[in-house]
Structure formats: C-alpha cells, structure tokens
C-alpha cells in the first residue's frame, strides 16, 4: 500500500526508469568501461613522463652585442607585409628580429612570421640544416637524428597545431621527435612514445576516434561524445533513482 501511494507522487514510473536503465546499460557499457579504464590510467600514470620532455633541455641565451644590431627600420623595410610585433630572439646563440605579420590568439593558431638576422639584416629561411641544429640544441640525449621533414597540419603528435613545422626524429629508445615552427624557428615541443601512449588514452577518453573520413582532432567537442554523454547522464540518473528506491525499501542492510 505504502509503495503504491509513493508511486503516484513521482512524476515518472519506476518501472520505466528501470527499463530505461537496463537497455541504456547495453548501449553505453563499452564506452563506460573505456572512460573508467582510461580515467584510472590518468590517475595512475606518470604525469612527467606523459609530457614527452625526457630529453628536453632549456636553451641558455648568450649576450647580444647591442652595437652590432642592424637598424630596425632597415630590417622592417625588407618586407612589405603587415607588421604586428617585432621581438629580439635568439636562435642557436645568434640574435634575430622575429617579425610577426599575423598572429592567432594562441601560439598554436595560424600565424605568419619572418626571421631577420639582427646583425646582418638579412632574411633567414629555416632550412633543414638549421632545423636540425635547432632541434639538437633543445635535445639532451646522445642519439643522432634519423629523419627530418617539414610537416603540415594535422600533425599527429600535436593535433591542435595549425602551423607548418619541422619534425626532427631522434634515434633513441623513446623515439623522440622534436618540432620546430618552420617560419619562426620556435621550439614547439618534444614528443616521444610515453607521450604518444598517454595521448592514445586521451583519444579514448575524449572519444576522439578517427571515424570514417574524420581524423582525430585532439579535442572533446565531437558529436559522438555529446551523444554518449547525454545517454550516460540518463543512465546514471535512472541508476541513482533505482538505488534510492532500494535504499528506501531497506534493501541495503549491514548484516
């Protein structure tokens, strides 16, 4: 009697809730296990290893001879492109004017730079020789370079990057790859097998699956995760209601 009374006060039928919960469990269980498993992995993984920086070292700047710097206005007149910013940077212990023609909101957004030798005032194009030297400068390991190539987005190790990069692979036990921005010479980052392993779990957790025709994008705003997330919300809420019902009916007892 008591139960029948309660049922009339609820805006939904408990039997519907239970039916929904059972069938939803069939739909979401695989992804739910992937979420829980990868979530547990993030909890347990070595966070410093997952950054891919085992063989990364910082670059020590050298002193710049102010008197040798070429006149900034002459350097700026080299290019007729728009001028947003000029910074005095160092590449391989040599000063350059890094001229920003176009800059995105963040560093990985599409940008456009020129690099001008700050002593001679000559434009510097980053060729494979310079890319190799820049990569080595940031690399603390003893391995040699095995491959070197210019890569265009999408770049598997840095999926959010929107600029052309030099990819410099080292022949070490972790398969370290060093990425250099092809127009500015800036070090974008290091990647290695540890980072790739962690990235694989992020791909699973974010359901960023390379589905028919669509590659992974390195983000979590995709339709398949939105769909499954909504199903899972309903699944968890129906489960909670069911659990509460069992609790009220006194099914949880400490013997």
């Amino acid at each position: 009697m008591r139960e029948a009374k309660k049922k009339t006060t609820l805006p939904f039928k408990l039997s519907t809730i239970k039916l929904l919960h059972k069938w939803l469990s069939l739909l979401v269980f695989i992804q739910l296990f992937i979420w829980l498993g990868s979530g547990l992995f993030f909890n347990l993984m070595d966070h410093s290893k997952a950054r891919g920086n085992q063989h990364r070292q910082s670059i020590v700047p050298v002193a710049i001879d102010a008197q040798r710097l070429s006149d900034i206005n002459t350097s700026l007149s080299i290019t007729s492109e728009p001028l947003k910013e000029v910074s005095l940077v160092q590449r391989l212990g040599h000063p350059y004017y890094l001229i920003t023609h176009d800059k995105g909101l963040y560093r990985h957004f599409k940008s456009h730079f020129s690099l001008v030798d700050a002593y001679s005032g000559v434009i510097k194009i980053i060729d494979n020789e310079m890319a190799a030297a820049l990569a080595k400068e940031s690399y603390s390991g003893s391995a040699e370079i095995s491959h070197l190539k210019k890569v265009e987005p999408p770049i598997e190790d840095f999926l959010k990057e929107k600029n052309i990069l030099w990819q410099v692979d080292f022949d070490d036990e972790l398969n370290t790859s060093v990425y250099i921005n092809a127009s500015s010479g800036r070090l974008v980052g290091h990647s290695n097998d540890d980072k790739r392993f962690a990235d694989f779990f992020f791909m699973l957790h974010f359901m960023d699956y390379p589905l028919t025709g669509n590659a992974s994008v390195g983000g979590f705003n995709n339709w398949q995760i939105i769909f499954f997330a909504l199903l899972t919300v309903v699944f968890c809420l129906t489960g909670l209601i069911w659990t509460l019902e069992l609790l009220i009916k006194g099914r949880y007892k400490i013997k």
Partner: protein
Amino acid sequence: MLFIGLQFVVWSVSGAYMVIMDIDYIHGDSLVTNEKQNIVPEQVKYSFTDLLTRYPQAENIELGLLLTKPVYRFDLKKQKRMVSAGDGQQLPKINIAMAIKLAKHHYANRQVEISKAQLITEKPPRELSARYLPVWRIDFDDFSSPSFYISVNSGQLVTKRHSFWRIFDWMFAFHVMDYIDEEADNRLLLIASTLALLASIFGLVLTYFRLAPKYNKKQNHQLNKPNKAGC
C-alpha cells in the same frame, strides 16, 4: 552502488557539460577582437640598440603597440617594463582609466559598459594565475559577466574569464575529484574510480542476466510471480 552512485552522476553531468560547451567559447575567444593594428615603422625612433645600451640586462624584448603607440616591453630582473619606442621614455604603470580603455579596446562588443574595476596585487582569485600579478580586473556589464585581466606593468590582456568558464572550472574539479589543485592524480579519485570499475563489472553481469534471451526464458518458466527487485 550506494557509495559510488552519486559520483557516477557527478562524472556524467560534469563530463556532459564539458563536451557540450565548445572549448573555444569556454576560453572566451569570442569575447575578444583579434584585429590588431599595424606598427608604423616611422614612429619607431628609439632602436633596439638604444634600448639595449640603456638596459643591458633586458631580456625578451618585444616591440608592440599600446593602443596605437609603439612600445618596447621587456623583462628586467624578472619584472616587466615598458618603454616608449618613440622617445625611449619609461612609461608609467597602467592606471585605472588606461586599464578600462585597454579592456574596452580588446572587447568584442564596442558598446559595452564596465561594471567594476579593481586592482589586484596579491592573493589572485581562483581564476587567475599568480604569475600575472599585479593586474587590473575589469568586469563588463554583459551576458555571462566577463572579466578581463590587464597587466599593470605591460598593459597586455593576460586572462579573460566569464561565467561559463567558471562553471567549467568547477565541473573539472568535480570530474577529477580534486577541489584544490585540480590534478588528476589524487587518492580519492583512485579509490572512487576503482570502485566504479568494479561496480560497472557487476552491472554488466546484471545486464547480461536481465537482458540475455536465454536467461529470460528460463526465468519466465521458473517464476510467474513478480521478482524481488520489483521489475
């Protein structure tokens, strides 16, 4: 299930919020105009050589704009400095009027009103990294109560926040069960996710027995009365 059920709801609701809300929107990218003006080379009368002769210790020197005027920004003994690129004069720290002007300059909606301006020199709020201090916090009277943080020393927009970012931040904290550092490697999360995994395995076993046709048939033969769980 009794212990872990609530956390399941928390995970699914916070997860759903984070995947549904576009991350660029959460970052506040739609709040700023990114049409930067160009530097006019003729206005640059003070050269990098002049600057480095005057400040030999200067690091990370950058020639950019402060509203429309070219300025040099650089680090001197870990502190940001700003010098006019027109005459080499050191520029004063950003005052409240200038901070409001700069915030409006970066804001996408030109007609916006400012609701509050506040100088923060220590104890930054949860949404701001301490490395940006000191800053001006400029609150806009607009949808989702946006705030821009303008650096006192460099005049640059260092952080942008709004209500949906603030909700997202809490959602993430609840998702990783860390309400202080927001790191995913805390013990609470370890215990909860291990229990959750166990509970899900039991759940899958239940699903099999409830929905597998073979078992259902057998059950129908065996009992014609309602089962104990009420379904």
